[in-house]
């Protein structure tokens, strides 16, 4: 659940990171030493990094197929 929520918010952050909602060619204001639209992108990517790290640490990466999956595989026949 926590992993799915993190991944969903990451998608939203990616959409927000691209300045499609700004007027093209507009002279920017400056924030954190960067053009404001760049600062927004960078902050979005910082948030993505934090959430993605949480998502990875919440992810189960098994080293073996579980018994049910193994039985299903054997039933269908492997190459």
């Amino acid at each position, binding site marked *: 659940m926590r992993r799915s929520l993190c*991944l969903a918010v*990451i998608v939203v952050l*990616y959409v927000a*990171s*691209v*300045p*499609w909602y*700004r*007027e*093209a*060619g*507009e*002279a*920017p204001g*400056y924030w*954190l*030493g*960067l*053009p404001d*639209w*760049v600062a927004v*992108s*960078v902050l*979005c*990517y*910082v948030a*993505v*990094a934090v959430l*993605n*790290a949480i*998502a*990875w*640490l919440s*992810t*189960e*990466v*098994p*080293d*073996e*197929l*579980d018994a*049910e*999956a*193994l039985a*299903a*595989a*054997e*039933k*269908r*026949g*492997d*190459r």
Partner: protein
Amino acid sequence: MNFGVWGVVSLVVYLVALVGVAEIAKRAKQDHSPTDHFLAGRSLGSFVLFLTLYATAYSGNSLLGYPGRAYRDGYSFVMATGFMMSIVVVFHLLVPKLRPLAVHYQFVTPGDYLRVRFGGRWARELRGAIGVLMSLALANFLLAQLKAMGDVAHLVTGGRIPYELGVVGLALVILFYETRGGMRAVAWTDAAQGIAMLIGLSALLAWLLAESGGLEAITLAVAERAPDKVAVPSRTVAVNWFSTIILMGTASVLYPQAIQRIFAAESGRALKRSFAGMTFMPLATTLVVTLIGVASIARFDITDAVDTDGVVPMLLADWGAAGGFATAAALVVFLGALSAIMSTADSCLLSLGSLLSRDLLGREGSDEAATLLGKRLAAGILLATIPFALARDLTLWRLIELKMELLIQCVPAFLIALHWSRLKTGPVLLGVLVGTAFSVTMTFSDHARIGGVHIGVIGCLLNSALAVLGSLLVSDSDEGTTSGAAVAAQR
């Protein structure tokens, strides 16, 4: 800057150290099987795995090509931080499903997954098609690294080593340590190379910020000299930004060398910890090289696109000109850059050897002869690539894009196949062929993008639609058997 004798001495010491690591790695070998040579006996722990993933992902393209692109495009190239991070996000679709299958079926190459996943009459052809695409992408990547190695060797020695000798000499060193030590040598050298790259880049940015009066001063100087490079980008650039995130994010997870690191990890736990760390590296690397490229706009006036790949060497020349500590520090950065390039090249070479012998020539055995064939094929490919590296008419960025447009056509065979058991062999093969033909034809007819969207992304959508719709229409009896692995992967 003229590093001269110190540059040559540093380079020689560095290369001797690599050869030493190869010898230690060779002694650590447990047997002569392909699993031990190409996957280090599946023994890579979190720390080495993290550094080898990092050093392999960030290459000559990252250190020379990306600043060059940032110099040409300005701040809109901050998109690179996003797309490098998207790779670690998209790995969520691959790793949890692929890892248990890899351990259970003892995969060595990506083709081993295709072998157990796809059955029926077109299975061999599908493995061949994917193998060819991956080999071409790897050879392309290797070519970009060889070009970058030649440049850096020339610069680090103050011109004492010509570009051509740098390409050939360093390629032979890589071939030596990769052949002797296999994945262990590659992973261990990657770990050291990753640390050198990180230190080098951080030092260069710190110098640049101090010398230019801080980030705001750099931004204002760029705005005065080239206002379009700080202005809000056009709608086409915004579309291209999304397209690049999709292209790079999905295609990069299908690098054979990245997939093989999933196989080489000692455990699933080591993998997830490595990826958790990797997600921060675009901020420490890609964002840094983007800022370096943007800062160069205010310092240099470069008109030829190919020459913009040289902005980092030009900055280092400025830095090193002060002499003393500055020259030594610039030398460290140069060696860090060379490390990044060589660490990617060695991984490509190792993957190519295994891919060609197992996936294309069908040598699936676990004996010493299969390992030897992989080594010989890698050597052959490296020697065949060198003449192309000596021609210098493409920017590094264009080489990256060409490679990605091929790799992204493998998406249905891996990312969709792992999550949807009804995906069938024939439709996937048809999709790969149509998507690739479309992408290559459009690229060579000068339509690399449509409205900012990469042609490879459009080709992949076409490819995926054919694979999915075809699978819904083809009956099981028409297709042949579906592998048990396809069923197991869905659980």
